[in-house]
């Protein structure tokens, strides 16, 4: 089936759709790189080529250093937690125990809500002295916790919100994977006297690996892409303890109106994601060789 692509077909099938994609993916990435070498001009400051000044500012930016640390903790914390919880949820829902319909509803519901709605719900839940979290703590005779007002709890609180929203979606993927595990495999293992835990670890887990990779990649992208809750709940505070990289790009560019530094931060973000992609590709390839 070596159909030849005529020019007319190529224009309709490839050039039009792909130019849209290039215009909002590749073009802006390159444009960001160019703009990062210019200053942030305004009526009082003429536009000029500034060389690597923006990158020097980047190196000296204390806030950015803090934010990169936050972003790392955020990614490293939310991804394993979301994966672990979603596997647990999938096992529960898949167990044919009574109450699974209810469980599935509860686990999956947050996934349907927009992050902005989730943020509102949790903002209220966390509100010290007012929200349900405080009311529950009070019942147990404990002092209320200022979850979003303390530098040592704000980021963790945001991470939990993200996990709450994401785990249900990942559960669905695991559910699909679990349902495709051949029962005879499990039965065979059981016949050999393996415990339920052993069966899970030795038989089921390896079969879940592709799902885990898929889910992990998704979670990683979301960890960088989704900052709606930061905007609504903390605006990155207190003392930048809950600020993430994309939030910072938003703040610098649209609130502080420093488009040049915003572009520089975009270059950093794209670079980081590219690096992660390479690492990921390399890790997966190596794994593939061993198998």
């Amino acid at each position, binding site marked *: 089936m070596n159909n030849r692509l005529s020019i007319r077909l190529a224009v309709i099938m490839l050039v039009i759709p792909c130019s849209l994609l290039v215009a909002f993916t590749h073009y802006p990435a390159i444009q960001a790189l160019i703009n990062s070498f210019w200053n942030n001009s*305004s*009526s*009082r*400051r003429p536009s000029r080529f500034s060389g690597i000044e923006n990158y020097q500012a980047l190196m000296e930016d204390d*806030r950015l250093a803090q934010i990169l640390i936050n972003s790392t903790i955020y990614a490293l914390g939310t991804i394993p937690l979301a994966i672990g919880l979603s596997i647990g949820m999938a096992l529960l829902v898949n167990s044919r125990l009574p109450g699974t319909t209810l469980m599935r509803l509860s686990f999956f519901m947050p996934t349907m809500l927009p992050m902005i709605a989730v943020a509102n719900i949790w903002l209220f839940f966390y*509100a*010290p*002295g*007012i929200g349900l979290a405080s009311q529950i703590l*009070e019942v147990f*005779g*404990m*002092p*209320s916790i*200022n979850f*979003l*007002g*303390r*530098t040592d709890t704000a980021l963790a609180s945001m991470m939990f919100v993200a996990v709450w929203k994401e785990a249900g979606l990942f559960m669905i993927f695991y559910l699909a994977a679990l349902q495709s595990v051949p029962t005879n495999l499990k039965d065979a293992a059981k016949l050999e006297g393996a415990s339920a835990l052993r069966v899970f670890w030795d038989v089921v887990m390896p079969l879940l690996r592709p799902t885990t990779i898929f889910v992990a990649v998704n979670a990683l992208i979301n960890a960088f892409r989704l900052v709606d809750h930061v905007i609504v709940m903390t*605006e990155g*505070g*207190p*003392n*930048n*303890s809950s600020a993430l990289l994309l939030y910072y790009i938003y*703040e610098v560019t*649209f*609130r*502080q*109106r*420093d488009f040049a530094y915003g572009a520089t931060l975009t270059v950093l973000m794209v670079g980081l994601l590219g690096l992660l992609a390479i690492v990921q590709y390399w890790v997966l390839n190596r794994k593939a060789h061993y198998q």
Partner: protein
Amino acid sequence: MTRLKSYATLLGATALTLTGVASVSAADLEFYFPVGVNAPAVETIQALTDEWAAANPQHTVKAVYAGNYEETTTKALTAANAGQPPQVAVLLSIDLFTLIEEDVILPISDIANSEEDKEWISGFYPAFMSDAQFEGKTYAIPFQRSTPVYYYNKDAFREAGLDPEAPPKTWDEMIEVGKALTVKDDNGNVTRWGTRIPTLGLGGAWLFGGLVVSKGDVLTTETGIEARMDTPATLASLEFLLRLAQEEVMAPGGITWGDTPKAFLEGQTASMWTSTGNLAFIEENAEFDWGVGFLPGGDGPGAPIGGGNFYVFQDTTEEEREAALDFIKFMTSPDSAAKWSIATGYVAPRPDTWETPEMKAYAERLPQALVALDQLAYAEREFATFQRAKVTQYLVDAIESVVTGNAEPAEALSKAQEGADKVLGDYQ
């Protein structure tokens, strides 16, 4: 779209002229404003806008609620950069320098230049005009103006054996009174704090300005290029905030702006510092006897002036500017300003408003409303410079890092000063 709109306007205007209705040239105004949902503020703005439109049938006006202050400024700037600015907007007074630098607003004194107009401009409280003017020009007209005040729960005062008619006047008194007001349960957990001063974000920085003023200093000047973040007054102010937590008068850690009125209404704090613009909200929802006092001060009374002003955007036609000016005059007229002030608690920006029968009746019914006005005599401009959002962030970071226990006051302030000077260095 815009062209279509102007055709429509043209048609409308022609129709009006033809039918013999006296018609000044027509304009379609878009008006951005930032206020909360809880107070009947949105309704009041809408009602006043409709009233103006009804009185000026040749014009139209669309009021757009664009979110909180910062979000509304962001929206107005992005719209202006895209060449579709609102004609009029109420934006933070402290965004004056940003708006000038972005070159999107028009000095109102350029449009309002008749003798009558000049007299009108001089009729506003000078305190509110101080941050509406720059380099000899008046860029903005005060409207949604406020100072923070000290709200306190009189029932809680009585319960603690304090005089409910004598709110604390100094920092020391505030701590002393606060200790008496703080209540703990059997487990040793605080169920009611003595006071609550929001310390996070822009709201926190605004109130911090009040602390500094009461120590006889200012954070900023009218030049827009000066940030006085590292001074004895700022140091004393930050240390005072820390002391409130150390003496268990105020909850430790960062305190949010938005939850504060709710915490006060719920009795979780016996007093709070927040904008006088919350007056109507508190009046409507408080189920206890409450009073309002000056902000307790370090060396004497002191408060920051805050809130929003009317701005007119550059990218507008002659007709739109005229209409915008007329709209602003209407909104700040004694009758409108009285309605606005009564519905919210914002300080009416002109003395003549306070002379109206409605305002007099209001002040009699709710004497708390006069406190912010009286406090104006001790109030100074809010922190504002060029690159306001960026420079304020240094101040916000300093305050937040100290109240959350991550930095020492002196060290945090000198770091903030360094950052601010670096940004403002470009403008010297």
